[in-house]
């Protein structure tokens, strides 16, 4: 193994995967950037959700099929799902002490967000392309 004299982490710790993974900064920054981006998207989404309560299928699909709404909806999904994924990741890392449970939960919820996000974006595109004028 190559000896790194500048590191304070011992070789044993390295092998065990302890110490900083150097991913923290990127995670921190991504959480803030998605938070800022979510301000206009969330305001639009809340206003829309309140206006769309109880509307019929045709009303809803006509609304979602408009290019502006479809694009904003996809951006909303990408941004908020990413933000939610980052946020819930930290909560799991903080509160689940068992290593195996923690890793399984982290992987499972990431896959869940990706799967649900793709399903929603597919649905938006389907409505936009089939119901759009």
């Amino acid at each position, binding site marked *: 193994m190559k000896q790194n004299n500048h590191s304070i982490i011992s070789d044993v710790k390295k092998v065990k995967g302890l110490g900083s993974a150097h991913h923290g900064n990127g995670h921190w920054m991504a959480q*803030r950037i998605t*938070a*800022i981006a*979510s*301000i206009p998207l*969330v305001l639009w*989404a*809340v*206003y829309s*959700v*309140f*206006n*769309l*309560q*109880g*509307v*019929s*299928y*045709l*009303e*809803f*699909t*006509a*609304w*979602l099929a408009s290019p502006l709404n479809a694009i904003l*909806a996809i951006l909303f*999904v990408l941004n*908020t*799902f990413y933000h*939610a994924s980052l*946020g*819930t990741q930290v*909560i799991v890392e903080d509160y689940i002490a068992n290593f195996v449970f923690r890793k399984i939960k982290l992987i499972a919820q990431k896959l869940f967000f990706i799967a*649900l996000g793709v*399903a*929603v974006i*597919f*649905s*938006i595109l*389907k*409505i936009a392309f089939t119901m759009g*004028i």
Partner: protein
Amino acid sequence: MTEETNKIVIKAKRPLSPHLQVYDLPMTAKMSISHRITGVILTGGLVLLSIWVIAAGLGENAYNTMMSLIDTPITRFVFLAWAFVLFYHMGNGFRHMFWDLGIGITEKAAVKTGTLVIIFAVAMTALIWWLTCDCTTDTANIIVLDGGVHETE
């Protein structure tokens, strides 16, 4: 404490010193944990919004079934509660951003901005309710304009 000694303590069921259940947490601590709790609730909200859109993507029957479940007086209240939770998380998010910039990190300031966040959340929830409470007439107008197109399909 290593993991092994941890396990021994749990096995022995020794009494713990009084912890969270006996402390009256300061307002700032309550707001801090609320940020996480509201975040988790909002993640649940995202799942519900996703079901709404996916149901619409599946077709009219799925959409109608879903809407019959969510369009009740109780769920309208749930939507308002959701908006409050969301604006709380947003307001407290602003607070975190300012802290990141080194602004307002004294205890006095944190209590003050914490109160502002709660006022912000209540005010924004009221605003969104006020903005959309008469929405039925607005949407009805849009649909009249749109209706012709869809009836020909």
